[in-house]
């Protein structure tokens, strides 16, 4: 079983690397909105696609177009929940 705190740290590192943000992991709150102008990270739809592909490659979980999986991209918390869930890859 993957440690949730460790997973969230990995996800933050992945977001920083994939989206080329000049941030440190501790600067991303677990519940910060990731995508859109409301979020402090100011990531856009292209970043969302980049993260979705990285999640698929690293964790084998597919974020597709349906509302349920798309919601996984709301925050680091929701992304961790999605990866740890029993949903089929």
């Amino acid at each position: 079983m993957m440690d949730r705190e460790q997973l969230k740290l990995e996800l933050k590192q992945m977001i920083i690397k994939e989206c080329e943000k000049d941030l440190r992991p501790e600067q991303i709150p677990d519940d910060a909105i990731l995508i859109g102008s409301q979020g402090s990270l100011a990531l856009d739809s292209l970043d969302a696609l980049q993260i979705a592909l990285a999640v698929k490659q690293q964790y084998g979980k597919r974020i597709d177009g349906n509302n349920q999986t798309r919601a996984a991209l709301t925050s680091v918390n929701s992304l961790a929940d999605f990866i740890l869930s029993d949903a089929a890859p």
Partner: protein
Amino acid sequence: MIKLVSASHYLQPVYDHAALTSLETALRGLCREPFRRIDRFIQLALLGSANCASGRKLRPDCGIYLGSGLGPIGNNVVTQEQLIRDLEIPKPFNFINTLGSSAGFYVARNLGLQGQNFFISRRGASLQAVLNAAMADMLLGFATQALVGVVEEVALPLDAHRLRQHLSQDILLAEGSHWLLLQSGASDSRSLDLKRFAEFAALEGFLKSAWRTGDRLCCTRSMETHAAKTMQQGFDAGALSGPTSAFHDSLEAAWLAAFAVSREPGTLFLVDGHPERGWSLFYLGA
């Protein structure tokens, strides 16, 4: 009359077993904003274009004419490997940057330009292609200023990069970003002209009449070997020394930009053509 008002010339040999030179520090001082999602090809384009435009206020209608023989080869290799070898969907940033026009977008954004924006990829003749496009647009009034650049990137490993271009493994490779800022009617600047000839003899005749001691002659790689030799034999052999012994696909651009940056006296003649297509002569004069 089209004049050259500024030029920049970046040429960096890439040695075996050495990493590519990092461009990030140089770009930090040249870019108006830190750009995300850019690859090495875009970095090279930003570096050269910003240096060429440095200290000048460009006109908003200034066109961008970017050429390359290989284009964004690094990202193309990554994307093809993801698709074909790994059977994976390429990452969006890699995929988007396989388009050479991405580089033109970032150059325009960095310099605040809204004019024409072209990317032309042509092996062995990218400089001629972009110069033709830029000069035509300027003569037709689509732009009064043109930023003309040629960028060549090296994708590691070097042996694969050489193989891809059918080069011998002992050839020294280079990356380059060579830019010219052209303007209609600018005074006290070098003029850039283009002449076309249907017959080789007419080209030779023109060159003989225009040639002055100290002028330079450059024959493009796409020229037939015998024609290039004929040209070179007819003129001062000393004029043929280039700016480097290293190779990239658009070395003509390195010749032209290096000559422009050096502010040496005389004229540089750049000859290109084929017996069936005719001949063209670009010349950058005093």
